[in-house]
Structure formats: structure tokens, C-alpha cells
């Protein structure tokens, strides 16, 4: 786990001091809300429907017990005792007072955290594969590169006023757990025939009003040139991205209008004019960062008798193992998913008490690491097999052991109209209603992998375009309606969902999900997930089932 050195510490301390001075000017009435807005937006502070919302950056979704405890304390002290993890692996506090914000930033700085660039038209908090450093299928720890990007993008003097927000995701595994095809820049590590490591560079993916899967503009970029190449991409975008229309300002529109080939040509031309060594990190710095991401695993047997006994004795634990526990690269270890999707609860919400439980578990059982993933769940990445029964028991006691990872009730939902000023419709109650309908774990297991994603407006924070079932809230003459799409995926088989049919009223959504699940169970062939069946049959049988009443 990367630790701040004196330079990083001074940086966030300076930032907190700067913000304290700026908030002071605002509270003293020296500047208006209009003048203050761009300042607070450089520090992740939004004015929402009911209060200020502070979005705290969790770079590449990695936390330590100390950081998570501090987040728990901040939520308890300055908010209502809970926080909301987002699809960008950040934490949002929705009930913040402006006067408290400088103190909060100072407390965050004490644990090497901040809220810089979680808003505004900047390079946002970088995300990475949540299994980084724990999965056997990666070529490298992507957090080494994500940390390099974090530093390079922090208060970048040229790129702090881009046409629009800008998001980068990094993976080094074949299985894409970072949704790299739907990012402004997606980086997927590859190995060349020579053995050299590099990145496949995808640019111009994104969701929102006009969803695109990002085309590859370079098959192989030697990894040592990552930062200079990023600088070339972002410069082309800064200079040529549209600034006249907020709906056409993302880089995806520039890439789509130029065509991926021409965009790539412009990037290569820009890159060729620069001096890469001015931006690229020297090997010593990369080595320094890399050393921070090498946890010391014990040498353990691959099989744990304690685990096998507990599994045989407790069916609930066995179910938890089937759905929430994943193989680790080191023998005798496992990756444990902590579900924030207990049916009836708000997806991604976590109380301060729950954060403290997970922090304690991380410290004791997971080499002091916690991860946040874009599915709005947490992970304990390095748990010994022998310890799994104890970890399960502690999670269950805190309401965090719902065995539903990737199942029908593991729903992604944005905050929606309950909090967000941009939303057209509520998302949370829709998610809660569906999850409750499918609360029976036997039934959920029978249905298998099914990813439902809900957004309360076209900005698509809930990733609905890439849900196996996507649900988008729309406003029809003051009433909440929901458009359903099918067949999306944000993974290595990335696809955008297809429209099911006319939007449904709120009280029909859960019934429609149930009808579509019935179609799937009827139509599926052996081994097919919902997504596979849909891709084989197409939309027709699903459409027929949902709109049967209407005929």
C-alpha cells in the first residue's frame, strides 16, 4: 500500500490550508456563491438538494484500516453517521455544513486523503482493478501505474480546465473488473512478444446521454511512456474538445467525430513533438512506487482444514463462500467481497459502525487493506483461508455478509432524486424494491449472475447502459418512469444495452424484472447466464413477456 512521503503530505496540507482560506472568504461574504462555486468544485464540494455533499477521493479504490476508520469518524462527527460509496469508488457524505468542510479536509490530510479533483472539469480520481495485487490473472499490479497517474494528474497546471470531466481506469488483467471500455481513457496492460509490458490504450468510452465503448487508439504503448502519452491525449482533447455544448464536450464526442484513426494520428503527432522524458517517470521513481505495493504473504498450504470443516457445518457460510469469496494468487489466501447490498438497504451506503467493523477486520485479517469496487461493494483482498469463518461471522453480525455478489440483488444505483439535484427520478427505492422481491438467497442463486444497474437520470452514474438489465429514470410530465435496456456489459465482453420497449411506471418495474427473469429461466440452456441467453434469443421473448398486458 502506497504511503505518502513528506512531499505528498505537504501537498495535501497545503491544499487544505488553501481551501480554509477560500471558505473563510466565502463565509465572510468577500465572495459570492457564484464566485465560490468553481473553488469548491475543485475540492469535491457540491451543493445538492438538501445540503452540501463532499465527495472524497479513494485513489484506485484502496484503503487502509486507518483511512477507513477516519472516514467512519468523519461521517459520525460531521454527517449523519453513514457514507455512500459510488461507482467511481469515491465516498460521498451528503449532509455537510460548509463551515465544517475545511476541518474535514484537514482530518483527511492527516490520513493521506483528500477530495481534490472529485468534481470539476479535471482529471478525476483514477480507478483500477479492485483485485489488484491479489489476483493470479494480472501481468503487474495496476496500482503502480494508477499511483503514477494520481500524482501526474494532481493539480496538473495545463489540464485543470478541460472541456469536461475526465476519467481514467487501469487494469492489468485479462478479465476487466475496471470497466475500461467505458472510460475517457481505459488502460489495459498487455505483454508484447518480446516480453515487454505495455498498455492497450482505449479512448473515448463513456456512458451518459450518448454512450460509447472506447475504441483502441494504440495496441501497445510501452509502459514507461505512459505519462507522456497521456499528456499528448489530454492536450489534443484540451485544445480540440468542444466547449460550446456541455452535452458534446466529453472526449468521446471528439473521438467519434474525428474517427478513432484520425484522433490516434493527432495524438501520435503531438506525442512525437514532445520530449517524453520530461513527463515519463524515471525508473527509480517507478521502483519506489512499486515497492509500496508488495505485501508480504505467508507461505501457507493451499487447503485449509478449518475452512472445510466450517463449510460442511454451516450452509450459510458455504453459500457465502460460493458467492463472496474468490481465488487469490497466493496459496492459502482468498479475496472476500463485503456486500453493501443487503436487500432493503441503500446500495453503497455504509454506516460508521460498519466501516469500523471492516477496518478492524482489514487490520487483523487482510494485511491492513480494504478495496472499494465500482459495484459499490468493498473487498478484503488478502484473507487467509483459515480466517474466513471468523471474517464471515464478524461481517454477518454487522449486516455485511449478504451472499449476493453479482446476483440479482447486487444492484448498482446512483443516489437519484433522493439526493441529487440533477436526477429526474428516484433510483434507491427502485433498487430496494427489486432487491426485496429477490431476497430469497436460494432463488437468487438459482437465477445466477444478473447485473442490474439503475441511474436516476441520463448522466448514467448508475451505469445503466452496461447493466445486463439497465434501468434509467425519466420524467414524464412530472411522473417518474423507467426505461429498461437489456444485454449491456462493462467487462471484457463490453456492450451497450438495447431498449426493451416503452418506459414503465415506477410500480411496474419490479414486476417487469420478475417477468424477464422467468423468461430467462424458461429459455436458458445449460451454463448460460442471463446475459448469454439474452444475446442468443434477442429482445423479443423478454419484450413479449413484459408488455403482454398491454396487448
Amino acid at each position, binding site marked *: 500500500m502506497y504511503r505518502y512521503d513528506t512531499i505528498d503530505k505537504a501537498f495535501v496540507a497545503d491544499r487544505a490550508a488553501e481551501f480554509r482560506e477560500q471558505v473563510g472568504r466565502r463565509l465572510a461574504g468577500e465572495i459570492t456563491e457564484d464566485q465560490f462555486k468553481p473553488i469548491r468544485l475543485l475540492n469535491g464540494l457540491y451543493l445538492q438538494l438538501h445540503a452540501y455533499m463532499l465527495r472524497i477521493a479513494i485513489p484506485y479504490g484502496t484503503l487502509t484500516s486507518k483511512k477507513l476508520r477516519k472516514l467512519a469518524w468523519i461521517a459520525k462527527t460531521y454527517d449523519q453517521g453513514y457514507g455512500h460509496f459510488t461507482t467511481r469508488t469515491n465516498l460521498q457524505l451528503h449532509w455537510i455544513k460548509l463551515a465544517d468542510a475545511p476541518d474535514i479536509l484537514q482530518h483527511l490530510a492527516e490520513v493521506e486523503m483528500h477530495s481534490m479533483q472529485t468534481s470539476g472539469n479535471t482529471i478525476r480520481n483514477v480507478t483500477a482493478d479492485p483485485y489488484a495485487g491479489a489476483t493470479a490473472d494480472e501481468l503487474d499490479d495496476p496500482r503502480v501505474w494508477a499511483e503514477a497517474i494520481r500524482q501526474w494528474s494532481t493539480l496538473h*497546471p495545463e489540464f485543470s480546465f478541460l472541456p469536461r470531466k475526465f476519467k481514467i481506469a487501469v487494469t492489468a488483467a485479462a478479465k476487466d473488473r475496471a470497466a475500461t471500455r467505458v472510460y475517457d481513457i481505459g488502460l489495459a496492460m498487455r505483454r508484447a512478444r518480446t516480453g515487454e509490458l505495455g498498455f492497450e490504450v482505449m479512448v473515448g468510452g463513456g456512458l451518459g446521454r450518448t454512450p460509447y465503448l472506447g475504441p483502441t487508439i494504440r495496441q501497445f504503448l510501452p509502459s514507461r511512456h505512459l505519462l507522456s502519452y497521456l499528456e499528448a491525449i489530454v492536450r489534443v482533447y484540451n485544445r480540440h474538445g468542444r466547449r460550446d455544448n456541455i452535452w458534446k464536450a466529453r472526449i468521446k464526442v471528439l473521438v467519434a467525430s474525428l474517427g478513432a484513426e484520425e484522433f490516434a494520428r493527432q495524438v501520435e503527432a503531438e506525442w512525437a513533438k514532445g520530449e517524453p522524458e520530461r513527463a515519463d517517470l524515471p525508473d527509480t521513481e517507478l521502483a519506489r512506487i512499486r515497492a509500496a505495493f508488495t505485501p508480504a504473504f505467508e507461505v501457507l498450504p493451499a487447503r485449509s482444514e478449518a475452512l472445510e470443516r466450517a463449510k460442511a457445518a454451516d450452509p450459510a457460510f458455504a453459500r457465502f463462500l460460493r458467492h463472496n469469496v474468490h481465488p487469490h494468487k497466493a496459496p492459502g489466501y482468498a479475496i472476500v467481497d463485503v456486500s453493501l447490498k443487503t436487500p432493503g438497504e441503500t446500495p453503497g451506503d455504509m454506516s460508521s459502525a460498519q466501516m469500523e467493523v471492516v477496518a478492524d477486520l482489514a487490520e487483523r485479517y487482510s494485511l491492513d487493506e480494504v478495496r472499494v469496487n465500482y459495484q459499490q461493494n468493498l473487498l478484503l483482498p488478502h484473507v487467509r483461508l483459515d480466517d474466513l469463518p471468523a471474517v464471515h461471522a464478524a461481517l454477518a453480525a454487522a449486516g455485511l455478509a449478504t451472499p449476493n455478489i453479482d446476483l440479482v440483488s447486487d444492484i448498482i444505483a446512483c443516489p437519484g432524486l433522493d439526493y441529487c439535484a440533477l436526477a429526474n427520478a428516484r433510483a434507491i427505492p427502485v433498487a430496494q424494491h427489486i432487491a426485496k422481491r429477490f431476497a430469497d438467497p436460494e432463488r437468487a442463486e438459482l437465477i445466477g449472475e444478473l447485473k442490474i444497474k439503475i441511474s436516476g437520470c441520463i448522466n448514467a452514474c448508475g451505469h445503466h447502459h452496461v447493466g445486463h438489465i439497465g434501468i434509467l429514470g425519466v420524467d414524464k410530465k412530472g411522473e417518474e418512469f423507467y426505461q429498461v435496456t437489456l444485454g449491456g456489459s462493462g467487462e471484457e465482453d463490453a456492450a451497450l444495452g438495447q431498449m426493451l420497449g416503452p418506459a414503465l411506471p415506477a410500480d411496474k418495474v419490479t414486476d417487469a424484472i420478475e417477468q424477464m427473469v422467468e423468461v430467462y429461466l424458461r429459455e436458458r440452456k445449460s451454463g448460460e447466464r442471463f446475459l448469454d441467453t439474452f444475446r442468443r434469443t434477442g429482445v423479443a421473448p423478454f419484450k413479449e413477456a413484459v408488455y403482454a398486458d398491454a396487448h
Partner: protein
Amino acid sequence: MPTRIKIEDGGYMAPSEDPFTYVADDQDLVQGDLILSLTRFQAEGDRLLSEGRAVGVRLRSDEEVEVLAYDLPRIAVVALEFPKFRDGRPYSNARILRERYGYKGEVRAVGDVLREQAGFMLRCGFDAFEPADGSGAQQWQAATQRFRHVYQRAADGREPAFVERER
């Protein structure tokens, strides 16, 4: 006339009298040193320079400094216009002027120039500023000195963190 803040030797910022007059396209030329739009510079620059005047060019944010590549040695000032503080294109123009063309003349920030942007501007190679928010040289200087460290190389010659760490 807007106040101009200029970086003096040693990095000190001070208000300084502006010897240049900006003449908009619909205004008549005046005596002395001038700053003109790109179009007007291209039409009248040769003649004005031959009269022994110093001439600067003011670029809109949608104009790219590459158009000045061959003229830079005889241009005294490049004024880069921020139509809104949110328009980030002048930052790229400034860096290219300094880092790619090695331009040594004055690079001036004009338009919606706010002190919250001062640090970014300085790093990208601006050395003269016409603040639109009434901030004075002292406030401007303070705004550029908030951070003891930086993470990237830019046009200002500051050592980035990864170089500091090697010492």
C-alpha cells in the same frame, strides 16, 4: 486600463506600467507599442514593425500558437485570452510557446483572469497578468506560492516531486 502584474527578476511580482496599447480590430491605431489581434497583425504587422515599434499579438482561445511559429522572434508579447476562466486552452498555448518554441518574450494572461488560476498560469509559462477580479500583485503572488511541491514538469522550471525525491 487594466492593471498589469509582471514577474520581475527573482520571481517577484509587481504592478508595472504597461507600455503596450491593445487596439481592437474596430479601433484606430495609436502611437507607440501595440498589441493587435492575429488578423490585424497579419495584415499590418510588417509595416508597424518596420516603423520600429514593438508589437504584440493577442490570440483568442480558439486560435493556436502554431500560427505564430515563424513570427515569434519579432513578437514582443503574446497575450492569451481567457473568454471565461473555465476555458483551459490558453494553458496549452502558453506551454507550447515556452516549451516547444522556446519563446522568451512576454506571455500575458488577459480576459477572465482570476487569482484562483494564478498558480496554474505561472506554471504554464505566463509571466504577465491582467487580473479581472481586482486582485493586486501581493495577492497574486500569494496565490502562486500556496504549494511547496509540484508533481509535473511544466514551463516554469520547477522540479517535480519525482526529481526532488532523487536528491
